[in-house]
């Protein structure tokens, strides 16, 4: 049985000056960054982990941690990327790149598991959208906490796309409940779509379905209220609904579960910011 002492990582525990320590760390960081830039995600991740283990809490190790999250995301190792991001935000609450970490969390959920139909170029909204709603929450947290972050515009664009997709999914459920004869369920779901996703094109169809659901249930007053909203006149006491676009996707695209939504934003994410890190800078340079 193996009982020789387990050798820890090769530590030379001799006393080292601060600067020497920083130089070693920077060298290890450059190795990692080289792999990152040439998309060698696995080896980059290994270097970053070694960096934060041997030079914990150094400035460069913190930067390494951010880039490790990016490498995990690009390696589509979603769960580890998300937990690494949460750990980073917990430990470095005031780090300058928190907005980028949030942005990465959103992207990881956005491209969580490429679905079969999405390979056909049709972003189906009929399947599981729970990952999409998590992505939506991450992006909205990014925009609220960092209104002037450089990732705000891309996040905003993705949020619109996600909101429309989730709204369409919900309307799909409303359509099923009407077909199934569960009119109150349909009306209630439609109501939630209109309340939670104002401006999504699907809200228009949601209102239509709500009106027919109430009509079939025999609740004509509610049906008339819905009809009035559809026609654009505000209801007494209810704000005018922002119904967003009224166009609907062609039937064949809906058959496959697609929608003529804004087409899918470019999937290659923005790599981590290079400028702010001291990587390129000479390691011995004084800290900013």
């Amino acid at each position, binding site marked *: 049985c193996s009982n020789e002492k387990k050798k820890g990582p090769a530590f030379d525990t001799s006393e080292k000056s601060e600067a020497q320590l920083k130089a070693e760390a920077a060298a290890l960081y450059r190795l990692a960054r080289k792999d990152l830039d040439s998309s060698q995600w696995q080896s980059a991740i290994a270097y970053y982990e070694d960096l934060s283990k041997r030079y914990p809490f150094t400035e460069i190790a913190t930067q390494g941690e951010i880039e490790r999250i990016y490498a995990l995301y690009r390696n589509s190792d979603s769960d580890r990327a998300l937990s690494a991001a949460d750990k980073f935000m917990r430990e470095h609450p005031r780090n300058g790149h928190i907005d980028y970490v949030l942005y990465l969390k959103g992207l990881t959920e956005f491209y969580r598991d490429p679905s079969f139909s999405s390979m056909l170029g049709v972003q189906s909204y009929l399947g599981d959208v729970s990952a999409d709603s998590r992505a939506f929450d991450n992006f909205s947290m990014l925009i609220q906490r960092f209104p002037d972050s450089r990732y705000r515009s891309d996040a905003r664009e993705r949020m619109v796309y996600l909101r429309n997709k989730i709204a369409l999914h919900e309307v799909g459920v409303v359509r099923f409940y009407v077909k*199934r*004869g*569960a*009119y*109150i*369920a349909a*009306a*209630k779901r439609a*109501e939630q779509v209109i*309340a939670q996703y104002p401006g999504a094109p699907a809200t228009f169809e949601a209102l239509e379905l709500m009106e027919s659901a109430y009509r079939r*249930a*025999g*609740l004509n*007053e*509610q049906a008339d*209220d*819905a009809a009035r*909203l559809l026609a654009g006149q505000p*209801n007494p*006491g*209810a704000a005018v609904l922002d119904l967003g676009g009224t166009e609907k996707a062609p039937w064949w695209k809906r058959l496959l579960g697609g929608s003529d939504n804004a087409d899918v934003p470019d999937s290659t994410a923005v790599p981590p910011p290079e400028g702010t890190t001291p990587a390129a800078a000479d390691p011995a340079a004084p800290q900013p």
Partner: protein
Amino acid sequence: CQILYRLPTRQGNVIDQRDLNKLQIGMTREQVKFVMGTPVAANPFRDERWDYFGYYKSPRGQSTSRTVSLYFADNKLSRMEGVQQASTEDLSAPDMQAIQTDFKKEANDSRTAAPPVDRQTPIPGGTP
């Protein structure tokens, strides 16, 4: 009734005449909610009224429904519609009978297939 087995459809609140008889004008919203429960089919566009809508379609196709609308003036119950039994045949009763007969049929169906949810026997009084 056709032999085809259609799935039963239950929607909205189960309205019990005993609860309706407890309602009086002037009750606050909380009191009404305590007696009747949450109005599942409340109308989103009209704040000042709560509609309790009960609807049941049995597997053999007969359907019964009932609507009770409660109006509130500055958060006090001011007007009630459809509270008295609409006709001699007790409208709320079919709901309960239908559910019970339906339940008995389901019970022996499921008893043969999978026993009702099997659980460790909790110490008396333990919630399921």
